[in-house]
C-alpha cells in the first residue's frame, strides 16, 4: 500500500521538470485543438503523434501521447456544445444537452461544467487505475496460454457486441477482419509465412501504426470532406468558471458516471463513446428530472463528460496489465510503448513497476492542464472552431503520409495507410465499427499464438481451455455474449427477467 503511494509520489516528482512540463503544455494544447476540430479524433491524433515522439525518451513520448489523448477527448466537448457536432465520437452524448444549454445563452456554463466534470471523471478513473491495476497485474501472472487465448477472443467479441451500432453482426465481422489482417506475415510458433503472396514486405505483417493512421486519419478526412453542411457556432456571453455548488449538487451523478466509465474502460476495445452513452442513460434513469434530458440538462452533460473521461484512465488498466487495449487509442499507445521498449502486460509490474505510477502521474498532469486551459482559453478555442476544414484536411493528409512512413521508412507502410483509409471509410459508411477491427489487428497474434501454444503443451488436447477455472469463466462469458446477440435468444431472456421482476413486484 505504502509502496504504491511512494511510487506514485516518485512518478509525479519524475515529471516535475521544465522539459516534462513543457511537453505537457504543448501536447495538451495540441490534443485540445485536435478534439475541438470536427473530423479529427483522439485516436487519429495519437497515431499521428507517434512519429513526432519517435526520437524522444520513452517516458516523455508516452507523456506526450497521453496528454494528446486526454486533451482530445475533453476538447471534443467544446464542439459538441457550440456547434452541435461531436468533436470526437466520445462527445456525441454531450451534444444532446450541451448544445441546448448553449442555445439558452448558457454556453459558458456548459463549457465550465464539461471541463470540471471531465476532470472529475479522469480523477475517478485514475483512482481505480491506481488501485485495480496492481491487483489485476498480480492475478494475471497466473494466467497461462489458455487464459490469454480466451482473453484475446473476449476482447474482440465484447468489442464487436458493444460497438456494432446497426447489429452486433457487423461488430463481429469487423473483429474477424481485424484478426485476419493479423494473420498476414510470419507466424511466431513455426516461423511460417502466411498470406504473403510472394510480397517480401508482407513477411513482417501489417504494422498497427500505418493501419491506424489510415483507418482513423484518411478515413476521417474522406468522411469529413463528404459532408457539405456547415454548422453555426453558438455565442458565448456568460461566465465559464462554474461555482462549486453548480458542480457538486450532482455529486451522485459524477460518482456513478465515473464508475460506469471506469467499468467500460476496463472492458477491452470498448471506448469512450460507449462510456459516455452508458453514463448518460444511467443518469437519465436515476434523475429526478428525466424530462429535462435532451433539452439542456446540466446533469446530462455532466454524466456524458464524466463518463467518457473516466474511460481514458480506466482503459489503461487492461492496456498496462494484460496488453489488451482498453480503447482504440490505447491500441496505438501499446504500439508506441513497444516502439519505445516498454512491454505492457503482466510482467510490467515485475520489470518496470514505476511505469504504472508514471502513467497515473501523466494522467494527473494532463487532466490538470485540461482544467487550466479549458477554463482560461475559451476565446482561442472558439477561434479554432472557425478554421475551415478545406484548409485543414490537406495538411492532415500530409501528416498521415509522414506518420505512416517515418517509423520504418518504407513506402509500403504508406500504401498500407492508403488501403486501410479506403477500406476503413467504406466500412464506416456501412456502419461497421472500427474498434473491433483495430482490436483484432492488435490481438490477432496473441490469440493465434496462445491457442496453438496451449494445444502444443497438451499434445493437441483442448480440455484445459474449458476446465481451468478462469478459462471456463471467460469462455462462458463469451458464449453468453454471442448468444445474447442473437435476437430471439435475447428476447426470451429479457422476457424471462421481466416476468420474474413482475412476479416479485406482485409479491411485494
Amino acid at each position, binding site marked *: 500500500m505504502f509502496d504504491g503511494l511512494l511510487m506514485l509520489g516518485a512518478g509525479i516528482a519524475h515529471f516535475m521538470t521544465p522539459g516534462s512540463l513543457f511537453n505537457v503544455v504543448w501536447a495538451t494544447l495540441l490534443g485540445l485543438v485536435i478534439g475541438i476540430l470536427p473530423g479529427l479524433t483522439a485516436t487519429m491524433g495519437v497515431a499521428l503523434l507517434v512519429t513526432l515522439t519517435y526520437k524522444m525518451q520513452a517516458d516523455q513520448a508516452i507523456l506526450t501521447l497521453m496528454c494528446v489523448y486526454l486533451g482530445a477527448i475533453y476538447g471534443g466537448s467544446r464542439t459538441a456544445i457550440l456547434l452541435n457536432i461531436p468533436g470526437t465520437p466520445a462527445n456525441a452524448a454531450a451534444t444532446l444537452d450541451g448544445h441546448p444549454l448553449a442555445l439558452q445563452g448558457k454556453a459558458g456554463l456548459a463549457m465550465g461544467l464539461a471541463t470540471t466534470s471531465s476532470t472529475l471523471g479522469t480523477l475517478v478513473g485514475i483512482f481505480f487505475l491506481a488501485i485495480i491495476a496492481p491487483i489485476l497485474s498480480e492475478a494475471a501472472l497466473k494466467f497461462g496460454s489458455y487464459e490469454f487465448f480466451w482473453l484475446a477472443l473476449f476482447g474482440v467479441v465484447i468489442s464487436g457486441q458493444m460497438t456494432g451500432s446497426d447489429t452486433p453482426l457487423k461488430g463481429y465481422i469487423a473483429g474477424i477482419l481485424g484478426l*485476419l489482417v493479423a494473420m498476414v506475415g510470419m507466424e511466431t510458433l*513455426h516461423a511460417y509465412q502466411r498470406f504473403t503472396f510472394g510480397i517480401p514486405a508482407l513477411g513482417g505483417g501489417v504494422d498497427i501504426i500505418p493501419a491506424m493512421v489510415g483507418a482513423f486519419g484518411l478515413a476521417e478526412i474522406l468522411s469529413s470532406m463528404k459532408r457539405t453542411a456547415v454548422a453555426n457556432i453558438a455565442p458565448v456571453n456568460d461566465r465559464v468558471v462554474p461555482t462549486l455548488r453548480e458542480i457538486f449538487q450532482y455529486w451522485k451523478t459524477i460518482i456513478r458516471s465515473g464508475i460506469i466509465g471506469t467499468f467500460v474502460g476496463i472492458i477491452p476495445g470498448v471506448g469512450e463513446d460507449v462510456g459516455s452513452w452508458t453514463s448518460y442513460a444511467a443518469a437519465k434513469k436515476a434523475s429526478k428530472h428525466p424530462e429535462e434530458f435532451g433539452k439542456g440538462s446540466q446533469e446530462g452533460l455532466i454524466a456524458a463528460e464524466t463518463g467518457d473521461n473516466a474511460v481514458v484512465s480506466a482503459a489503461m488498466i487492461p492496456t498496462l496489465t494484460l496488453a489488451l487495449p482498453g480503447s482504440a487509442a490505447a491500441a496505438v499507445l501499446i504500439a508506441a510503448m513497444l516502439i519505445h521498449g516498454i512491454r505492457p502486460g503482466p510482467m510490467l509490474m515485475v520489470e518496470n513497476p514505476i511505469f504504472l505510477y508514471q502513467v497515473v502521474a501523466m494522467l494527473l498532469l494532463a487532466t490538470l492542464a485540461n482544467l487550466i486551459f479549458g477554463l482560461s482559453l475559451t476565446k482561442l478555442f472558439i477561434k479554432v472552431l472557425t478554421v475551415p476544414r478545406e484548409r485543414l484536411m490537406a495538411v492532415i493528409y500530409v501528416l498521415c503520409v509522414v506518420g505512416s512512413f517515418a517509423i520504418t521508412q518504407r513506402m509500403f507502410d504508406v500504401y498500407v495507410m492508403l488501403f486501410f483509409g479506403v477500406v476503413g471509410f467504406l466500412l464506416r459508411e456501412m456502419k461497421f465499427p472500427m474498434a473491433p477491427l483495430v482490436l483484432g489487428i492488435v490481438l490477432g497474434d496473441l490469440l493465434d499464438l496462445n491457442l496453438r501454444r496451449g494445444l502444443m503443451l497438451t499434445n493437441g488436447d483442448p480440455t484445459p481451455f474449458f476446465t481451468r477455472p478462469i478459462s471456463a469463466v471467460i469462455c462462458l462469458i463469451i458464449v453468453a455474449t454471442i448468444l445474447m446477440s442473437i435476437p430471439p435468444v435475447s428476447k426470451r431472456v429479457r422476457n424471462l427477467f421481466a416476468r420474474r421482476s413482475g412476479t416479485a413486484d406482485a409479491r411485494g
Partner: protein
Amino acid sequence: MSMPDTSEEAVRARADLITAFILVALGIAVTYASWTMDRLEVRRINPATIPGLVPLILGMALTLCGSLLLVRSWKLSAPGSGASLIRLMFSWTALRVLVVLGLALIFTLGLMGRVPFWLASGLFIFAFIMLFETVMADTPKPLVPALLWAVGIAAVGGGGTYYVFERIFLVRLP
C-alpha cells in the same frame, strides 16, 4: 421527415447485401487457402499447431457471419433501394470523396519520390484547397482570396512539415 431515414436504411441494406456477398467470398477463399496451407509435416510439428488452424477457424467464422448478414439484408431490402444506391454512388458527395482520393493518390503514388517532399506536399495542399474552396464548394469563395490562402497554407504546410519533422524531430521524410 421519416422518409429519408427509411430510404437511407433501405440503401444501407442493399449495400450490406453486396458487402455480404464479398465477405462470404472472402471467407470461403480464406477457408480454402488455410485448408491447403502447408501443414509442415516435413518438420513433424504437432498437427494441432498447424499454421493454418486459426485462419481456417476465422475463414469459417467470416463465411458464417457474412451469410447471416446476407440473410438479414435480404430481408430488409426494399424495392427500388438498388436504384437509390446507384444514385448515391453518383452523387455530389461521392464525387467530393473521389476527388479527395484522387488527389491523395496523385500525391502519394505520383509525386512522392519524384520531386522533393516539401514541394510534393505543397502542390498537394495547394490543389486541394483551390479545388474545395472554388469548384467543389457548395458556396464557392472568390478566386483571389482562395488563391492567396492556398499558396500561403501550401508554403507553410509543405515547408513546415519538412522543417518540423526533418530538422527538429530528425525524422526522415519520403
